[in-house]
């Protein structure tokens, strides 16, 4: 962008604006991130390490990984199917479908958790039936998985739909005309075309799945060592005034966020992959 074409007296304004924006970023974005690591290491590396190998922390880490390992692949399959149906075919109500797929982004996380309590909780529609058959969904792992799937629902689909629509149908039609099967066409033609978008969507989906707090908090019941994910463990430790341990677990989640940002940014820089805002 050529700024030198603008009048020179604007250079003072420019400096003020740049410093203003940088101060805002430093104060509101960088400072909280630094605070997480500073507080986590505030009582030394030994305390930090001890907080991370605490059995409750370990089981929270395991549960978080398990929940992401179930919910991300399911939403990945859904995202591919939705994008295939929307991008490769014409049908009525397409824009309604796309709006509905986007819907979970506008729902408060607490409401996302609550709807499952109303369905599967003890007082919910299916509650009595579930109790009779000894199936626990709310205050158990299945509820956490369901709530996580709901809040991460659109991530893969919303990356793939615009991307696949932009790419059109010509490549697939050529492969099919040359005799490739439908599945082979997807594997050899479509998948290589959408791989960066797919990775991008999975990355954001995973970050949200591992970091989700509100929705999971409503359905989890906060049973230590059983239904606590990492963000919930952070809350429990914090509310017990065990700040160093809370920030130690939080620092792992902050690292996850940083890794996500680095991978996401390198996808954008290296492959020129452009994307929309990740809500």
């Amino acid at each position, binding site marked *: 962008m050529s700024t030198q*074409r603008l009048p020179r007296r604007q250079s003072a304004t420019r400096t003020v604006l740049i410093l203003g924006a940088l101060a805002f970023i430093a104060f509101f*974005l960088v400072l909280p991130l630094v605070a997480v690591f500073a507080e986590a290491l505030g009582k030394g590396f030994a305390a930090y390490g001890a907080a991370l190998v605490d059995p409750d922390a370990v089981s929270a880490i395991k549960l978080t990984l398990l929940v992401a390992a179930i919910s991300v692949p399911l939403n990945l399959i859904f995202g591919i199917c939705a994008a295939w*149906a929307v991008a490769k075919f014409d049908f009525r109500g397409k*824009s309604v479908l796309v709006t509905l797929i986007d819907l979970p982004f506008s729902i408060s996380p607490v409401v996302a958790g609550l709807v499952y309590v109303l369905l599967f909780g003890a007082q919910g529609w299916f509650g009595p039936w579930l109790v009779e058959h000894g199936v626990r969904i709310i205050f158990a792992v299945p509820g956490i998985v369901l709530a996580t799937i709901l809040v991460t629902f659109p991530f893969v689909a919303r990356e793939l739909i615009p991307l696949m629509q932009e790419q059109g149908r010509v490549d697939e039609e050529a492969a099919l005309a040359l005799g490739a099967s439908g599945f082979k066409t997807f594997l050899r033609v479509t998948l290589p075309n959408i791989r960066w978008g797919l990775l991008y969507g999975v990355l954001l989906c995973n970050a949200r799945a591992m*970091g989700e*707090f509100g929705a999971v908090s409503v359905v989890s019941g906060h049973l230590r060592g059983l239904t606590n994910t990492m963000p919930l463990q952070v809350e429990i430790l914090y509310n017990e005034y065990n700040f160093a341990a*809370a920030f130690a677990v939080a620092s792992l989640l902050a690292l996850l966020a940083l890794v996500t940002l680095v991978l996401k940014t390198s996808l*954008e820089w290296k492959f020129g992959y452009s994307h929309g805002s990740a809500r």
Partner: protein
Amino acid sequence: MEIALSSQLQMQAALEPPRPRHRRNRKSIIPGFGLTMGFTLAWLSLIVLIPLSALFLRAAGLGWSEFLAVGFSPRAMAAYRISFGTALAAAVVNAGFGLLTAWVFVRYEFPDKRLLNAMIDLPFALPTAVAGIALTALYSPNGWVGQFLAPLGIKVAYTPIGITIALIFIGLPFIVRSVEPVLADLSLDVEEAALSLGARPRQVFLRVILPAITPALLTGFALALARGIGEYGSVIFIAGNMPFKSEIAPLLIVTELEQFEYPAATAIATVVLLASFAMLFLINAIQAWSRRKANP
């Protein structure tokens, strides 16, 4: 620019009808419509539509008088006021500083620009609970920032100001990422023409640039507002959570639920959900308006 368009705009553009030389309903030779569409609709219904209708049916089951009594109780009204008020305040602050940040990133060159630009997405990637405890640690009376504010008599943590700070953190990327691509697409010619015709820089900004980016700014504003109204994790640590003073609506839902007050939780959740839908509708209306403005 690495970010071409807000993806909603992208999606809408891609949904425009096919060019006229294609016949509208040509039969596709591509297979898998039944399978993929079937799975899409089934998954959408199971995960999103049926659970959401459960909420509305539960709310409808309450009947009008009970719904109004528990959904608009004095405590609930106070919670809505705090939620909407702080979300609005944060979105206003973000509209200003987000526009400034987008402007600086698009128009100026400075060291580490790309790295700093990547940082803008931190609030999307950082789990809300982590943001919440970090901000509380910073702004509590003995925190890094709070200790300088406390002698001045400014209490941030455990007040609505703290809630607003958390929502500024959460909402910033929405404004920047909405405005940035539109600002980058603006051609400098018009500005230069205005300047050469004797307009002052301030006039150029108000008369030339601002009208062009208003739809994007409004979209970002509405997205940040919608997110702020429903936000929970980053707020509850810094809020103090005093009923009538610093209790947000999503927290009140959780509180009612924990006390097994299902009718109240359902009614308040319905109000919050309807507010979200209203925001979604508003965002779509803004984008339809800006498309009409772009190609009349």
